[in-house]
């Protein structure tokens, strides 16, 4: 499946398969997935529980390894990278947004956003400037010194979004980013993601159950029993 344009895709998935082995049984999770994601795209992966959408997202993000096929991200076949190469690749190319925010509880909002920059050679002053800009972008300039437990769910997710953005990644992956939020807050987060995509041209791949959330994406892709259905 591709988006119908001719330019080279940012993410090119070819013949991707993933299965788990449990005893003598082989349990297929993804079967022969072919998918292109263009730069600046905002793709929503939808499907029922167990359809393989989170597994597909994890494979694209390089935190899981496929059983078959290739995943080319910006020309790099990440399926061929070693664990340490993958870690370095993720640090440079992927921003993560999780359903439960996954912030470090012992770090302030500022320090959480700064976390990915600790892997770079940026000077302290440059890091500070970047973090302040990112937190300002998500509307949390006044919450920089707050710890996650001092923030609401929506604010925590904003911090997580700022953290995902901070290293200027090639792609942002979001796994049910509104799954733990009330409707109003979820809308705010979706506004933010949509803004990142439209105004900053960020490429986003988002897994969601929620058709309303998926409606904010440029493109919806459905998975059922490990197979792309449209």
């Amino acid at each position: 499946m591709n988006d119908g344009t001719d330019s080279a895709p940012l993410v090119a998935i070819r013949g991707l398969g993933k299965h788990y082995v449990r005893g003598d049984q082989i349990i297929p999770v993804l079967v022969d997935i072919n998918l292109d994601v263009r730069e600046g795209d905002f793709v929503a992966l939808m499907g029922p529980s167990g359809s393989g959408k989170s597994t597909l997202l994890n494979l694209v993000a390089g935190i899981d390894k496929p059983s078959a096929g290739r995943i080319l991200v910006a020309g790099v076949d990440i399926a061929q990278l070693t664990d340490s190469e993958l870690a370095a690749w993720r640090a440079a190319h992927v921003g993560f947004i999780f359903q439960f925010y996954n912030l470090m509880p012992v770090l302030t909002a500022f320090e959480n956003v700064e976390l990915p920059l600790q892997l770079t050679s940026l000077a302290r002053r440059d890091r500070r400037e970047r973090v302040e800009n990112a937190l300002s972008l998500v509307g949390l300039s006044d919450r920089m010194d707050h710890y996650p437990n001092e923030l609401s769910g929506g604010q925590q997710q904003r911090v997580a979004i700022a953290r995902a953005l901070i290293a200027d990644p090639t792609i942002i992956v979001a796994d049910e980013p509104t799954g733990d939020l009330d409707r109003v807050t979820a809308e705010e987060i979706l506004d933010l993601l949509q803004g990142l995509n439209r105004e900053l041209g960020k490429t986003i791949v988002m897994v969601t159950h929620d058709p309303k959330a998926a409606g904010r994406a440029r493109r919806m892709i459905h998975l059922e029993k490990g197979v792309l259905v449209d």
Partner: protein
Amino acid sequence: MPFVLRLILRNAFRHRLRTTLTMTGIVVAIVAFGLLRTIVDAWYAGVEASASTRLITRNAISLVFSMPLNYEQKLRQVPGVASVAGANWFGGVYITESNFFPQFAIQGANFLDMYPEFRISAEERKAYLVDRQGAIAGRKLADKYGWKIGDQIPIRGTIFPGTWTFTLRAIYDGADAKTDETQFFFHWTFLNETVKARFPRRGDQVGWYVIEIRDPTQAAEISQRIDATFKNSLAETLTETEKAFQLGFVAMTEAILVAIQAVSFVIVLIIMAVMANTMAMTARERYAEYATMKAIGFGNAFVAGLIFAESVGIALAGGAVGIALTFPVANAFGGALATLFPVFFVSEETMLMQVCAATLVGVVAALIPAWRAAHVKIVDGLRAVA
């Protein structure tokens, strides 16, 4: 403060009660370990204080049996021998049996010359040597009983019956902390003359001879020569280095020492298990955080390093407090058991062992949690949050 250090410190004090209790356990374990090691050291104090230039010649049958006085001349003639001085165990009681301290009858200036670690002023030494009933006491002993130079000290003899009154003429200070300052010396000639007068058949007998040799590397050969000299005599001799002689006393209580040493290591093992449990619990609670860090791009080694640093940090902090507390505890313990352990101090070696024990506890406790956290699959770790 660097980011990594900040993260480690905040993680360490995330559950203050848990960390405090763990550190308290380490403090208690390190104090107990240090105290038991100090007891073992105290047991070996005599061995440690022995000199390589001194040999001890005693009756081959047992130390209980004495040797004739005329051995002294023969010993002096053995090649390699520089000086000879005889001594006897007196074993008297000062006021009551509970006031135990070692008392020795020693032969003249020779003995004092052979023990430079007993530091006596020239004036007091001279006063002692010219007074037939003169005595020398260690500083700790004199302080304990409030003795001053010139005091009359009555001691009731058990091996040599009667009340023996000595005049304190000198007080010695130890050359270092390892020197026993609780001993009491007086003239062997005074003992011999008195014994000869009261029990003529027990006179002119020496308990053991201290022999100074010129070359410590010749100790074995000289010992053999001495024992060969008295072969087939009525009192055959057994000559050994002072260290071996002292070790002979330690060997009599070796089982107790082994037990003390075993207990000291068991204490470290127990706290290691407690700490390992704490770190395992801590790491398990944070799998999702470690997985998140790994997803962001931090490596396995970094995650493992965080756990190691936290574990070793807690263990070393507890260890530092434990080492600091060992000194007052050892002082109190040593003071209460001064009769049993005249030399009782926390050695540098013990402190080093305490540091090593604390470090080992921290490292071993972190091994499995760090390995697990480093090797947990990111996707599995992230699931732990849900």
